[in-house]
């Protein structure tokens, strides 16, 4: 099992944080230029797409409970060595802590030394910092491609 758990506290409400997670126009502002696309029903396809239409990752919605929990299966589509590892699982959990919303992102796959987990773990801290900045100031961090 390869796994990481990232946590960030954001001065916002769980509802606004949820909207930022599932709205494509919102997601691409902080998510390294990609958008999450899905109709957000259990069993529906889920994908991460670049602005030019290329697909980065695909999967399906495994569990959804707005504005508390979202679980998707997640397979890389553009790097063969990552794609061959198959599906990982990403879990987003939102909790209220005082005036803050606590977002926990867990990304795991049932294999040791996963290259996929290593690859995405480089991106998550930046994505979460940018999401925090966007929700707290209205502006995402710039300079992402």
């Amino acid at each position, binding site marked *: 099992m390869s796994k990481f*758990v*990232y946590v*960030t*506290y954001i001065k916002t409400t769980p509802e606004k944080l949820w909207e930022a997670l599932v709205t494509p126009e919102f997601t691409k502002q902080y998510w390294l230029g990609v958008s999450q696309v899905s109709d957000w029903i259990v069993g529906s396809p889920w994908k991460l797409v670049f602005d030019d239409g290329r697909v980065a990752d695909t999967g399906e919605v495994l569990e959804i409970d707005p504005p508390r929990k979202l679980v998707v299966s997640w397979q890389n589509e553009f790097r063969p060595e990552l794609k061959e590892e198959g599906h990982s699982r990403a879990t987003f959990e939102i909790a209220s802590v005082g005036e803050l919303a606590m977002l926990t992102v*867990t990304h795991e796959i049932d294999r040791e030394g996963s290259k996929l987990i290593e690859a995405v773990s480089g991106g*998550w*801290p930046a994505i979460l*910092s940018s999401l925090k900045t966007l929700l707290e100031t209205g502006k995402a*961090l710039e*300079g992402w491609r």
Partner: protein
Amino acid sequence: MSMDAVFKALADPSRRRLLDLLHAKNGQTLGELCSELDMTRQAVTKHLVLLEGANLIATQKRGREKIHYINPVPINDIADRWIGKFERHRVRALADLKKMLEKES
């Protein structure tokens, strides 16, 4: 959840060592971490509580055990605050150069 808490947590060498251990192998129990350190269980627990309070580690329960994960998000927030968006590549290049040169000598 302030930056003060992050800096205070990072100011202690034992706590930095704990983060190093989790960076090397993410997701460890208290027992695993203790076996790597010359400290009492109580002392390690105290450091872990402080690290979790600063959001530098995240924990999850697995049965009766607590698993500890390194959480670099607050450190990334600090980097974003001062290093900024476009400088990051250059700073990274300098860090890589330093690492390469120091490995050679």
